[in-house]
């Protein structure tokens, strides 16, 4: 068991070291949600003062509304970045170093996943810190009670990334995947508009959003930021994580080989 734990902490340390060496990446992960928050959301200040939905107790500004969605976005992009780095590692060979470790392969992959989630924590809290400085404050306890939700949401999105990396093993195909996965997940969700508002515009869109696991990840974080437990969200996210992870681990079974391209 000790060996498992040492392996996990080693992978986490490596991913974090790598992340902090890539200053551009850190900057990029912060700029994206901050632009949404400060440029896009600022124009919609009063647009949401129409209805009070849980977990909110009163009327909120749009900036407050989209904060959990942007936290989800940070984790979504991190999950994809992680999957991209797995594809890159596979092409470069360092994935072989990981996979030839004398530990069960699923644990090696889960370690890689958790390492990605740990990197997303830095990103999320840096973002929340900036949001706080710009006056978008959450209840103090919320910053703590969100940790489990971030872990779960990170695992779900990381598993999705791992699944994608098991299917797409060439870097050049990745941009297309980002377009087909990241953008629908983000836009057809409750990140930018509440579900009831989606329903007003289209019943079909509403059902798509309600089915989207990212919606539930965002809602789970939204509730957690107010120290509320969102059972539906947690349930959906757990289910999606199990499905994504199972498929991803199947994709990485040794009988499938590591590279699509013929070896040599």
């Amino acid at each position, binding site marked *: 068991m000790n060996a498992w734990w040492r392996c996990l902490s080693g992978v986490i340390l490596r991913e974090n070291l790598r992340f902090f060496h890539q200053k551009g990446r850190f900057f990029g992960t912060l700029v994206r949600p901050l632009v949404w928050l400060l440029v896009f959301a600022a*124009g919609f200040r009063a647009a949401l*003062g129409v209805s009070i939905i849980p977990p909110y107790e009163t009327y909120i500004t749009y900036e407050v509304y989209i904060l959990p969605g942007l936290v989800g976005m940070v984790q979504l992009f991190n999950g994809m970045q992680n999957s991209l780095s797995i594809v890159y590692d596979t092409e470069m060979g360092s994935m072989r170093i990981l996979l030839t470790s004398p530990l069960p392969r699923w644990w090696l992959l889960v370690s890689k996943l958790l390492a990605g989630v740990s990197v997303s924590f830095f990103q999320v809290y840096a973002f929340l810190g900036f949001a706080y400085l710009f006056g978008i404050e959450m209840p103090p306890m919320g910053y703590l009670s969100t940790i489990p939700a971030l872990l779960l949401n990170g695992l779900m999105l990381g598993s999705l990334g791992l699944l994608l990396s098991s299917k797409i093993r060439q870097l050049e195909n990745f941009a297309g995947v980002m377009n087909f996965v990241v953008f629908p997940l983000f836009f057809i969700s409750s990140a930018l508009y509440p579900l009831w508002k989606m329903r007003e515009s289209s019943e079909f869109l509403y059902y798509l959003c309600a089915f989207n696991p990212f919606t539930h990840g965002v809602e789970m974080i939204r509730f957690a930021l107010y*120290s509320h437990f969102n059972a539906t969200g947690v349930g959906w996210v757990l289910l999606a994580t199990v499905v994504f992870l199972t498929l991803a681990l199947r994709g990485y079974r040794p009988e499938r080989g590591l590279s699509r391209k013929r070896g040599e």
Partner: protein
Amino acid sequence: MPIAIVRHFALALLLTPPVLFADTVYVTNEKDNTVSVIDFDTLKVVNTFSVGQRPRGIALSPDNKILYVCVSDDDAIRAFDVENLEPLYDLPSGENPETFVLSPSGDRIYTSNESDNIVTVIDTSRRSVLNQIDVGVEPEGVAISPDGKIMINTSETTNMAHWIDTETFQIFENSLVGQRPRDAAFDLDGRRLWVTAEIGGTVSVFDTASYEQIIELKFKIKGIRQDRVQPVGLYLTRDGKLAFFALGPANHVAVVDAQTYEVLDYLLVGRRVWKLAPTADEKFLLTTNGVSGDVSIIDIENMKVIKSIKVGRFPWGVAVHE
């Protein structure tokens, strides 16, 4: 450390912060002809009772025993027993009373009769009209100085605040204010008078010694059209440090530093925020939000809206009983 965090999370799920206030809040619902009673302990509506047609202005007697409600379409100010919320009697308010103010001792009520261009003065113990004062066109807001010697009435069309001597019932000064003045209030030390103007979008502050205007406040909220910023209800804290203004269809309450006149913040509340009233300990300020049909609670110290509670249709006035 991770265990501590988990425990923290678990506690956060289980515990809600203890609530230490025990005030009772009364809110008039203009379109439901009722008053909603909110228990400030649980922040829930515990009772709703019928009061008469089109209830608007509401206030408690200084001894907290009688609840007065303007029932505008019944042309009366109705008195209720706070103990059992039973109607006691009607006061002769004149036609269509909208809002009123009690004298500091509670012996008089001043109310404006909009279509008659008068202010009616009622003797609350004899339950009779003491005087009727001719004022400007469409009188609206009424305010009383802390010593009870000056009564202010604002007239919507004349755009004036009339200063009235409560001994002689004579107007002794008129001050021009913004368009359609709605409400007025004195500081607790009586040195300044604040008048809100709905269409003008301004608040005029006067020196009560010289009757001169000190400043005219204007508001500007990012993302909200200027013509929707319509100051109506107001509240001045007892220490003279803060002033709150309900900005009507702007759906925000402005918080102003009463010393520097700087706007400190705009707090998002429900739609068409109308009147304001504090809790007894002055820790919270309640707002009535007409269109969204709820009451928002502002944490005064932290300048944050903590909760909104559904009441009846078109809540108008609010009074708090310790």
